[in-house]
């Protein structure tokens, strides 16, 4: 069995593509003035992340990433924007004083340095074999055995949020 041709070039290329999409999308999301473009940046970063998951042999996680983040989160955000936001960014919107920007920059750099240092020098265990195929069955079994408490808590949070939404909506109807 001969290997996939030019795989030694293709693999880094694909990785760079996804990494670029993730970082570029995140930068767009942070730096643009139009909030709807921020959402597009978020969508792009999600696609990049999904590609990264796929690259790491977790197709299920990749597809769920797209399904949830683009199909649900981004769409909900844009829906809220369309209901609430004025069209044009006002003058001075998003512009802060120099000390503010400096402080934000220092905090961001510190967090980045910390995470990067942890990632590069941390003592990560390397599994000798692939733990699982990242498939649905493994995830299902794990959710209902080892992680059942987490599953229950998530379900409880969702229930509470639905009840909260119902309560808020009902109260809203009686306001004149």
């Amino acid at each position: 069995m001969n290997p996939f041709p030019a795989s030694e070039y293709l693999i880094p290329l694909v990785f760079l593509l996804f990494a670029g999409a993730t970082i570029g999308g995140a930068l767009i999301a942070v730096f643009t003035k139009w909030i709807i473009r921020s959402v597009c940046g978020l969508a792009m970063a999600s696609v990049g992340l999904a590609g990264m998951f796929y690259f790491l042999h977790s197709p299920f996680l990749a597809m769920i990433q797209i399904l949830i983040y683009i199909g649900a989160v981004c769409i909900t955000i844009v829906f809220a924007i369309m209901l609430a936001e004025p069209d044009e960014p006002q003058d001075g919107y998003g512009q802060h004083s120099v000390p503010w920007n400096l402080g934000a920059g220092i905090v961001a750099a510190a967090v980045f340095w910390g995470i990067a240092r942890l990632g590069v020098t941390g003592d990560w265990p390397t599994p000798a074999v692939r733990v699982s195929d990242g498939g649905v069955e493994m995830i299902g079994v794990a959710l209902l055995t080892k992680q059942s408490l987490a599953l229950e808590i998530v379900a409880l949070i969702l229930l509470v949020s639905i009840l909260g939404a119902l309560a808020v909506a009902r109260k809203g109807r009686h306001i004149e």
Partner: protein
Amino acid sequence: MTAAEPIRLLLFLVGVATFVGLNAAYLVWVERKGAGRFQRRAGPTEVGYAGLLQPIADAGKLMSKQLIVPPGADRVLFRLAPIMMMPPAIMAFALLPFSESLVGIDMNVGLIALFAFSSFNVIAVMLAGWSSRNKYGIISAARVVSQNVAYEIPMMLVIITVLMVSGTLSLTAIVDGQSGAFWNWNLFALASNPLMPVTFIIFFICMLSETNRAPFDMAEAESELVAGAYTEYAGMGFGVFFMAEYANIVIGCALAVVLFLGGWHSPVGVFPGVFWFLVKLYFMVFLVIWVRWTFPRTQFYGLLNLSWKILIPISIFTLLLSAVMIKLV
């Protein structure tokens, strides 16, 4: 992976691109002919025999038109929206199992992948409507979101019901589980869920709604909103949306065939193959066209009420019913 794999994938991609293009062009012809027949007129007749060259003339016209970005529109997003619409549709085709061997990528989570790719559709239409800075576009964008959010839920519940019956997420395996004659199809899997035909009808309604087809074409209700989100698009910008719409119809119908109608298996148990898949696929497409020209457009509140008050309770009930039946049987 062997060296033959990239060649196979490349060939499959070329085939899919051709299939999508021809489908879009000739489904428009079928649609216009069908509309004509349902309304007791002839449809296109002038260009070529029975108007068969009409799609080519239309394509030439669309491609030669100027691409206009309206002043005041968000230029980047306005251009990006049609680009976001088409590739996910083409990628979804690579997952469809046309026959036992004719499938681009046989993923073990193929069904989820299909829905993941189709979720780009909503955001693309919404961006198109929002970025053209046009009142019809914005109304259409708001409509398409609330409609798709409402219909995603019964769709997913129906999909889970089918999944519980077939027990796998791989599209090929789902079709394999329905081999034999037509009483083995999921549509008639009455032993594990007596309401399976109802489930199929819910799926069909949701599919019509997700692909923005009449009677649920709120996004481009031409008598109210000009063309909704596509109002400002000229030339091939509009053409891409149009192609993607037909590609999505074909994907939705193919999904119906895979999930309920036994995929490439023949209804009488002999000669399975891609032929049967295409016959069933185009029968479903014909149903979609038939529905469009038979039923008037619903009102928007009617549309949302149908989903939240009728389809979701029924689909939850069928889900629970099949869970109980599978546990008991």
